[in-house]
């Protein structure tokens, strides 16, 4: 039973005198509770895929099915965490975190309790009444994640969520995400530019190629992750492990091959891919 199903999904844009094929027919299944990362060059359509799963964009043909129902619009069962945080600037931390609950109609008292819980869980204590402009990038992203998590979504969509953070905060957030996942398993579709991030976080890494967007290959990380108990080790250890390095290089080579094949042709690509 898959949580997300992209079934022969294409996306075509109508330009002035031609049609631009952003995505070739893509078929991808994401299982329930699976963490899938999507990497690829700029413009390969990975964000488009994410937005289609969210219901903010729609396929030209094919279907996007989440939890057995075709996606017809955005909703709190498929929240997105954006790269730019997208917090409502006019609401405080508590206001932002509780926003989805408010839309759902949860009464104020119950809301306050749940929000307080997540404030603690995400390490935001002491900032409950701060406005986004008073918070650092890392804290803002924590608020954005709390805002999503509190809704207990079936599907968590993340669009380069740590891309706007500095390197150290980024690593902290990655560890944070692993910790939250270990507390409660969720289905995640995670788009990123960083190969390391993808391999560190995901059960499977989908490597995409661009123009037109298509899936180049899929690398499975789950078995090694479980076998070597990555989730209970500090990130510094994992970055050094042979298995991690090998997987990372494999994905990286695929990405490079995808970039080269645009200019040089299929034969070169075949010899690089391992």
């Amino acid at each position: 039973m898959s949580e997300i199903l992209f079934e022969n999904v294409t996306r075509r844009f109508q330009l002035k005198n031609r049609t631009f094929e952003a995505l070739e027919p893509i078929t991808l299944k994401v299982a329930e509770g699976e963490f899938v990362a999507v990497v690829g060059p700029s413009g390969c359509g990975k964000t488009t895929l994410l937005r289609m799963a969210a219901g903010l964009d729609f396929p030209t043909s094919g279907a996007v099915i989440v939890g057995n129902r075709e996606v017809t619009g955005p909703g709190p069962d498929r929240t997105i965490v954006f790269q730019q945080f997208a917090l409502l600037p006019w609401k405080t931390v508590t206001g932002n975190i509780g926003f989805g609950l408010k839309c759902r109609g949860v009464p104020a008292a119950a809301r306050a309790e749940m929000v307080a819980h997540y404030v603690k869980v995400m390490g935001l204590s002491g900032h409950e009444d701060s406005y986004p402009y008073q918070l650092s990038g890392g804290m803002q992203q924590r608020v954005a994640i709390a805002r999503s998590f509190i809704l207990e979504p079936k599907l968590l969509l993340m669009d380069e969520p740590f891309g706007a953070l500095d390197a150290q905060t980024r690593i902290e957030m990655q560890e944070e995400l692993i910790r939250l996942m270990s507390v409660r398993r969720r289905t995640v579709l995670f788009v990123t530019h960083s190969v390391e991030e993808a391999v560190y976080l995901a059960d499977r890494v989908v490597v995409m190629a661009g123009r037109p967007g298509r899936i180049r290959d899929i690398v499975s990380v789950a078995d090694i992750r479980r076998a070597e108990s990555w989730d209970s080790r500090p990130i510094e250890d994992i970055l050094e492990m042979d298995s991690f390095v090998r997987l990372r290089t494999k994905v990286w080579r695929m990405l490079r091959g995808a970039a080269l094949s645009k200019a040089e042709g299929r034969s070169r690509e075949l010899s690089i891919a391992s």
Partner: protein
Amino acid sequence: MKQVTQLPRHMPANNSVAALMLLSSACVTVILGTWVLSSLMGMLRPSIIPPPWDIANAIYTLAVSGFAGHTLQTHIITSLGRFAAGFSLAAIIGIPLGLIMGWCAPARYVVTPFFEVFRFIAPLAWLPFAALWFGTGIGGPILIVFSGAFAPCVINTFHGTRLIDPVMIEASRTLGATSWRLMVDILIPGAFPSILAGLRVSAALAWQSLIGAELIAATSGVGYLIVQGQGSFETSIVLAGMISIGIVGVIIDALLRLASDRASRKWMAAEA
């Protein structure tokens, strides 16, 4: 298997833009139609709301035989002349002033107190002095136009200089640029989009202030025309005059916007 469809589903159909335009045109037609019908049926008093053909007739008469001393064209040209004079003066003095204020702090400190004081004086409040100093000459309206157009020129130019990335200046310095070169090659092009935006605001304010001045203390010009029309209860002439004023204002703004777009395309880097 799902059906393959051509257009993205659940998205607004592309012809909704056309549908909206149809709605707009329909509403305009309804309003115009109501106007024409009620005029024909005698429901509207022609001295309060004249029928459309009266207005058209008024425009024709104004253009051919004139009213209040001149034809419509002459009135418009007179007004434009005053506008151009006051506006150019404001720009010629205001833009360099804004640049200098942005360039060196002492200039800013000196100018700011005076600027803040004079800025809040509504342009029309200068009318008494305009009358005292220039009588009924052309100096009066020009003064009013100037006082309306001056502030936005200076302010926008100054803000334009503020928007220039100081890193660009430092980089140019390390490449050996002199102060003069910095001014010409960085300051002015960098502030240019703001300057043009300021010119558009100035022009609108200048045109407004001019009309106001002509309403009260002039013997020619479109402002004078409509006030005379009001005095003689010639509603069609007043409306015809208002329409001309609006059209001239639109043309001035459109010309400036054209220049502004051209300039931003050339100097795209200085996008605020």
